[in-house]
């Protein structure tokens, strides 16, 4: 039952190359080079040693970054993929090395991040014998990969790798895992070169664009009085930011973003009306239930965005643009499905929509925003009380970076605050674990983000809880000399859980009180400079020091212990029941 045969993949071209005898491991490295891989995040071990041995000879052509934990490796690859738009590559050994990837695979699958993970595996003849460091990686990773495959023969490697990259990055991107038994890494075979893959007969990455639906969508939009665009990461994954901007500008439609779509349109664009969802902005949530045509672009109606589904946009006609046909009608019934790559469908739509301005309607969003400023935002960003708020830290950060930085966030209150308030001038500037909500994501993802976009400033905003999940990756920063600004917002609590306990569990604070080490000292141990700011007076200088420091820097800011993130759509409530306090 060997799958990778030439009837299922078609080579782009048949380059005439000399056949030479190579090991599987070396063929693997050559395949990576063929895919123009420049960076690998990895961690060696027994079952992947031949690959590391082959890598030794290619040190000048590909940079391997030694992480401190495989989870750190895969999150770094995710950050890399998201800042650069390229495929992130991970190496890990068999057994525990491979199982340490699971969280990152699940995260990358739900957030559609293109990755190729290579895991070593025990010798083929030992499969199923409970051999040392054997784990059934193909079965374990089936639910959390877009595709996976076990290689037991060296000669499969060039074709499987080509397939892996093609699958990871085409259509709706996702993580691919290739498990290679040690014998296949060692085995010599006649290597005839690598061929890129651009077709697999059973796989349709892009659905056919249907003109009639584009026409119907345009007609709905042209007739609409209160059209509302909500966009997600699909705009970024499709590199369709310009097409998106042209569309909303011509049609004059207010547009709001999911957390994964942040940055596709600059924060200060006049039609950018803010964030959707549980901790999103007031107007976009309330007006979702008032618009007459809802145009969803590259987003998947996650429950954190929709709130209670049976009370979600029931009055609206829904147009859904998505590359993944299974997303259409999955959560929200569509009036017009526009499946396809939005880089292709948006310009078609733009051509058919009338030039319009929905001034009064847009003003409504701005009025709601003003209410939100009065009720929440002003006090959050410019507090009059003593303790520092997370919002004011982000506000000060904005003032210094001017919105030019990549902001990587962990998971919790600080994530919501950072995503709500961070100014983003550019696309691929907001890197967060949206779908899985993985604490511990930010530090390694920031490392990868910096490697993927070396010219940009990368700030990792992390809670005191999440930082303690993956802080060992400061070792990676130290060894590979990566410039990441670490901004810890320390509220001495697992803040988001505490907020829920306060609001929904009668303030019964069950195990949310978390202690921290002296982070500045810990960072110092890794050769990373830093300081702790406990008073407002020191905040601006601290941030300036962090951003102007040459190399990595850790800034710990002590914020109010019991602040809550608002607005909030409580779980099980409709988006229009959003609470300002």
């Amino acid at each position, binding site marked *: 039952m060997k799958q990778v045969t030439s009837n299922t993949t078609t080579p782009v071209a048949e380059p005439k190359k000399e056949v030479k005898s190579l090991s599987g491991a070396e063929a693997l490295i050559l395949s990576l080079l063929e895919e123009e891989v420049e960076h690998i995040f990895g961690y060696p071990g027994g079952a992947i040693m031949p690959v590391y041995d082959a890598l030794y000879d290619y040190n000048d052509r590909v940079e391997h970054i030694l992480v401190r934990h495989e989870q750190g490796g895969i999150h770094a690859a995710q950050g890399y993929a998201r800042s650069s738009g390229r495929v992130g590559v991970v190496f890990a050994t068999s057994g525990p090395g491979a199982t340490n990837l699971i969280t990152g695979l699940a995260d990358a699958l739900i957030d559609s991040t293109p990755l190729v993970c290579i895991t070593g595996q025990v010798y083929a003849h030992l499969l199923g014998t409970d051999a040392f460091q054997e784990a059934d990686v193909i079965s374990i990773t*089936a639910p959390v990969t*877009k595709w996976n*495959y076990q290689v037991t023969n060296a000669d499969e490697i060039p074709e499987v790798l080509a397939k892996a990259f093609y699958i990871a990055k085409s259509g709706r991107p996702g993580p691919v895992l290739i498990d290679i038994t040690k014998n296949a890494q060692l085995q010599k075979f006649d290597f005839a070169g690598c061929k890129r893959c651009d077709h697999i007969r059973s796989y349709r990455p892009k659905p056919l664009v249907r003109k009639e639906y584009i026409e119907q969508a345009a007609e709905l939009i042209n007739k609409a009085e209160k059209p509302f665009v909500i966009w997600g990461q699909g705009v970024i994954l499709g590199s369709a930011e310009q097409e998106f901007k042209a569309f909303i500008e011509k049609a004059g439609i207010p547009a709001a973003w999911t957390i994964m779509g942040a940055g596709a349109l600059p924060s200060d664009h006049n039609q950018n009306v803010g964030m959707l969802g549980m901790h999103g902005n007031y107007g976009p949530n309330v007006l979702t239930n008032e618009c007459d045509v809802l145009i969803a672009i590259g987003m998947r109606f996650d429950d954190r965005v929709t709130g209670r589904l049976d009370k979600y946009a029931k009055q609206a006609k829904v147009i859904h643009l998505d590359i993944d046909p299974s997303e259409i*009608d999955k959560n929200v019934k569509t*009036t017009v499905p526009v499946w396809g790559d939005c880089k292709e469908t948006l310009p078609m739509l733009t051509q058919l929509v009338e030039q319009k301005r929905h001034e009064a309607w847009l003003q409504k969003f701005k009025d709601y925003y003003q209410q939100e400023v009065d009720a929440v935002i002003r006090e959050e960003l410019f507090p009059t009380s003593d303790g520092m708020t997370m919002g004011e830290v982000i506000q000060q950060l904005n003032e210094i970076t001017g919105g030019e930085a990549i902001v990587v966030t962990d998971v919790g209150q600080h994530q919501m605050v950072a995503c709500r308030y961070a100014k983003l001038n550019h696309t691929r500037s907001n890197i967060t674990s949206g779908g899985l909500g993985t604490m511990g994501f930010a530090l390694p993802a920031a490392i990868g983000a910096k490697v993927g976009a070396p010219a940009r400033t990368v700030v990792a905003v992390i809670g005191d809880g999440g930082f303690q999940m993956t802080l060992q990756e400061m070792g990676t920063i130290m060894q590979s000399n990566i410039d990441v600004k670490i901004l810890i917002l320390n509220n001495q609590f697992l803040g988001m859980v505490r907020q829920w306990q306060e609001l929904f569990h009668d303030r019964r604070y069950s195990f949310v009180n978390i202690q921290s080490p002296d982070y500045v000292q810990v960072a110092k141990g890794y050769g990373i400079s830093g300081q702790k700011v406990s008073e407002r007076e020191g905040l601006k200088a601290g941030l300036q020091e962090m951003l102007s420091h040459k190399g990595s820097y850790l800034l710990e800011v002590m914020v109010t212990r019991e602040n809550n993130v608002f607005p909030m759509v409580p779980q099980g409530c409709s988006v229009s029941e959003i609470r300002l306090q």
Partner: protein
Amino acid sequence: MSSQNHIERQEYNITVYTENQIGLLNRIAIIFSRRKINIESLNTSPSEIEGIHRFNIVIHETEEVVRKICGQIEKQVEVLKAYYNTNEDVIWQEMALYKVPTEVIAEKALVERLLRENGARVVVIRKDYTVFETTGHREETDNLIKVLQPFGLIEFVRSARIAIIKASDGFNRKLREFEKREPHQEVVENEYLNSRDKVFTM
């Protein structure tokens, strides 16, 4: 809502055309288990095309759920196409084997008559036991269990369901479209979306 669901639920026959790939059965099975959906019957076999496998899966669900499940199945890289059909849309059969003590059959003419009436065929006769086979719908194969129980039914087994789609003209033409590089209407069509009347209400 749950009672309404109950009314809408019925048996659906899912037909999946796939490449022949180790691990694909698992990938398809976990699409159901993740959603806590019981697979009533599952059969894999070759199809009319060499190298292409065919899955027949039966679940008891609402059309809404079946439609989404098929969408998820089609997302698998090695899946070419997934269809779903009600029982009315397919010709289907299951096969059952029954082992009974030969001495009872030999003694009782009644048993022989019952077997004949139920369309059972003898597969093996040994001194100690006889194996019968019937093919048909669930009620028919079930019926014979009841009939044979009083006569000391030793063993019973029923196969998964296999089903042929009445309206299908096979997969050959479709496959040729799949082999083309450019997507063609045929390939990307999503039957359920195309036939939705709701799409056009404006």
